[in-house]
C-alpha cells in the first residue's frame, strides 16, 4: 500500500472510531426528536435552537459552528425560517458535507406542501416568506411525511442500517396515526370556531382541524402590534365573535392579555416546537399539549 492511500484510510478509521454513529444536527427541536425516533442509538442528534425562542430570530452562537463542523447531516426546516441565522453558521463550519446541495443537507420544506405562498412579495408587507408559511410542522399530517424524508436520507448516508431506520419509521407512523385519531376526536366540536393568532404560526394546525382564523394581533408578520391595530382587532373579535386568542410562547403577551381581559375571550398560549413549554418535550406531547390547552374548559 502506498502512503498516499494509507493516510486517508487512517483518517477514515480515526473518524469512525471517534464517532461510530451518524452525527446529525437539526435546527429545531421537533426535527431532532423525529431523527432520534428513527435513528435511535445509531445516530447522535443535536438540536440547535431553543424551543421556547422565536424560531426566526436565533442568536448564531459560535458553539453551533463547532457542532456543524462534526456533522454528517444537517436537517433544516427551510422555507426561509432559518435565513436570519443559519447561513453564516454553515459558511463558518468549513464542513463540505453539509453545504446546501450536498447529500448531508436536508431541507424539509422541499418535502411538504406549503400554504399561503404569496403571489408577490414586498417588505412593505412585513416579514413575508416568499416560499410560503414555513411553520408546516404545526400540521400533524406533515409529521409522517417529514419522518419519511428523514428515514430516506439516513438510509442513504448509512445504508447498513436502512432496515433499522425503516422499521422505526413504520413504528412511528402507526403510533402517530393512533394519536391522530384521538386528536381528531377531541377537536371535532371545534370545527368552524373563530380564532385570532398573534403571529401566523399555528395556521397549519388550525386549517387542518377546521378552525377559522379571522386575524392576527401583529399588524404585519414580524411587526409588533400598534395601538391602532389593537383597536381594529378588538372590533374584529367582537364582530366575528372570536372564541380564542392564540399566542406563541416567545412574543410579548401584553396585547393578547389586554384583549383577552377586555373582551372576556380566552387567551391560550400554545407550544410551537418541542421544548416551547415544559409539557411539550417531544413531537407527540407538543400536539397533546395543544389539544389539551384548547379543549380545557
Amino acid at each position, binding site marked *: 500500500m502506498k502512503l498516499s492511500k494509507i493516510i486517508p484510510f487512517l483518517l477514515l478509521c480515526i473518524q469512525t472510531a471517534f464517532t461510530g454513529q451518524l452525527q446529525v444536527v437539526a435546527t429545531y427541536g421537533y426535527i431532532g426528536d423525529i431523527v432520534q425516533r428513527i435513528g435511535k442509538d445509531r445516530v447522535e442528534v443535536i438540536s440547535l435552537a431553543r424551543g421556547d425562542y422565536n424560531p426566526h430570530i436565533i*442568536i448564531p452562537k459560535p458553539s453551533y459552528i*463547532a457542532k456543524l463542523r462534526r456533522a454528517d447531516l444537517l436537517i433544516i426546516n427551510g422555507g426561509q425560517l432559518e435565513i436570519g441565522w443559519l447561513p*453564516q453558521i454553515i459558511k*463558518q463550519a468549513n464542513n463540505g*458535507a453539509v453545504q446546501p446541495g450536498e447529500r448531508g443537507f436536508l431541507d424539509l420544506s422541499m418535502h411538504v406542501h406549503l400554504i399561503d405562498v404569496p403571489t408577490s412579495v414586498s*417588505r412593505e408587507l*412585513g416579514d413575508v416568506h416568499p416560499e410560503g408559511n414555513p411553520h408546516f410542522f404545526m400540521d400533524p399530517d406533515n409529521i409522517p411525511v417529514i419522518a419519511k424524508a428523514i428515514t430516506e436520507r439516513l438510509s442513504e448516508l448509512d445504508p447498513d442500517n436502512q432496515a433499522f431506520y425503516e422499521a422505526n419509521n413504520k413504528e412511528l407512523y402507526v403510533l402517530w396515526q393512533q394519536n391522530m385519531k384521538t386528536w381528531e376526536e377531541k377537536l371535532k366540536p371545534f370545527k368552524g370556531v373563530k380564532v385570532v393568532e398573534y403571529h401566523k404560526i399555528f395556521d397549519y394546525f388550525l386549517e387542518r382541524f377546521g378552525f377559522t382564523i379571522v386575524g392576527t394581533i401583529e399588524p404585519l408578520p414580524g411587526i409588533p402590534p400598534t395601538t391602532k391595530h389593537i383597536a381594529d382587532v378588538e372590533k374584529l373579535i367582537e364582530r366575528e365573535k372570536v372564541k380564542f386568542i392564540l399566542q406563541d410562547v416567545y*412574543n410579548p403577551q401584553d396585547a393578547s392579555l389586554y384583549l383577552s381581559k377586555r373582551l372576556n375571550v380566552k387567551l391560550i398560549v400554545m407550544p410551537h416546537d418541542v421544548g416551547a413549554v415544559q409539557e411539550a418535550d417531544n413531537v407527540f406531547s407538543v400536539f397533546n399539549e395543544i389539544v389539551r390547552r384548547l379543549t380545557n374548559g
Partner: protein
Amino acid sequence: MKKTSISALLLFIFLWLSGLIRAQSKEGSAFDQSKYVPDIALILDVSGVARDMADQKYYSLTIPGFSYPFLNQPSSSGLNAHRGLNFNYGEMSLYSVVDPYFDLFAVIDLAPESAGLEEAYFTTRKLPYGFKIKAGKFLASFGRVNEQHEHYWDFANRPLIATALFGEDGLNEIGAQVTWVAPTPFFLVLGAEILNGENEQSFGTLGLSDPKGSVAIDAVQGPNLYIGFIRSSFDVEDASILFGISNAMGTSRNDQGFSSIGGTGEAVDANTDIIGGDLTVKYSLDAIRFISLQGEYMYRMMNGTEYRRDSLNVVSSPSIDKHNSGFYAQVAAKLDQLWEIGVRYDLLMQNDISLGGMDQHMPSNLPRYSAMIEYSPTEFSRLRLQIDRDESRSAQTSGGWSQQPYTQVLLQANFTIGAHGAHAF
C-alpha cells in the same frame, strides 16, 4: 363600412401581436438566466451631526504618536465627517454560489461621486478536514470589529484604538486566508493570512530614496503582512463567550516628502508587530432581550529607522521605537423588539515614541466616551442617536501638542433593501 373594416383589421393585428408576444415570452425565455441573479442588497447610511468644533479645526486634529504625522486625522470623506447632514455610505453587496466548489462575495462602496470595491473575495465550499481558503480583497480577521461592516456595529464609529492603528477604513487588504475549524466539541478556529500590507497607518510597501542618493531602499516586493489568529467559544447556560488572539506582522513604510526632490521631508522604514485580544459575551435574557459585552485590546510595537532631511539638505537617520496600546469596552442591551441601548469606553493607553533613543513625550491615556440608543422598526431599518465625548485628539502647537476635546451628537439612519445575508455572531 370602412370604419368597421379598419376596426376589424386593428383587432386582428392586436390579437396577432398579443399571440406573438405570448409565444415570444415563452420561447424568449429559453436562455433566461434571471434565476441566477446573485443576492443583491443596498445599504444606505445617512446622519446628522452636531459638534462643538468647526469642521476645519476638526479635520486638522490628530492622535500624535499613534501614527505618522497627519495620517490619523479625521478625513472630510469619513463617516459623520461634517457638521450638519452627512451621506455616510451606500454599500452594495453581491453574493452567490459560483459552483459546487466556490462562493463569491463582493461589497461595492458607493459615494456621491465615486465607487470603490470594499471587498471582493471567493471562499472554498468543500475542502476536506475543516479547511477553507478565502482570497481576494477583504477585511482582515484581526480581532473582532475589523471584519465587521459598519452597519453591524453597535456604535456609529469605529473603536478608537482600531482607528488609531488601522485608519478609518480598517485593515482592508488584498491577499489570501486559510482557516481550520477544529473537530472539537467547543468552537476553535485557527487562521492565517498573507496580505499585501498596504495599510498606511501601520504597514506599507513604499520604496524610499533621497534625491542625493544617500538613502535608497527598495519597495517591499510581494506579501508584506502576515496575520495569525486563534478564536474559541463556549456557552455557559444562555451566555455565549467568544474570545480570540490575533497577531499581525509586517514592514512599515511611510514617506512624508522625503523621496521628492528638494525641501525638508521625513520617511520611516520599520518593522511592525501588533497583538490583539478580543472578548465578546452575549447573554440572552429571553427570546428577545439580550445583553452583550464586547472589548478589544491592541498593542503595537514598531521599530526601525526614521530618515529626515532638514532645510540644509542634510539627511539624518535616527532609530525609531514605538510602543502604542489601547482598548475599548462596550455594553449593549436589547430592551425589546424595537429598542437597544449601549455605552462604550475607549482608551488609548501607552504612547511611547523614542527617536534616536530620546523619549518624545507623546500624550498618553486618551479617552473617548460614547452612549447610544437605537430604534429598529424592523431588521431592515434603524435609527440611532449617539453622543461622543472625544479627548483623544490634539493639535500641533509650537510647544508640542495641545489636546482638543470635542463633543458630538449623531443621529444616524441605516436602511437595507434587497437580499442581504445573515450576520455572523
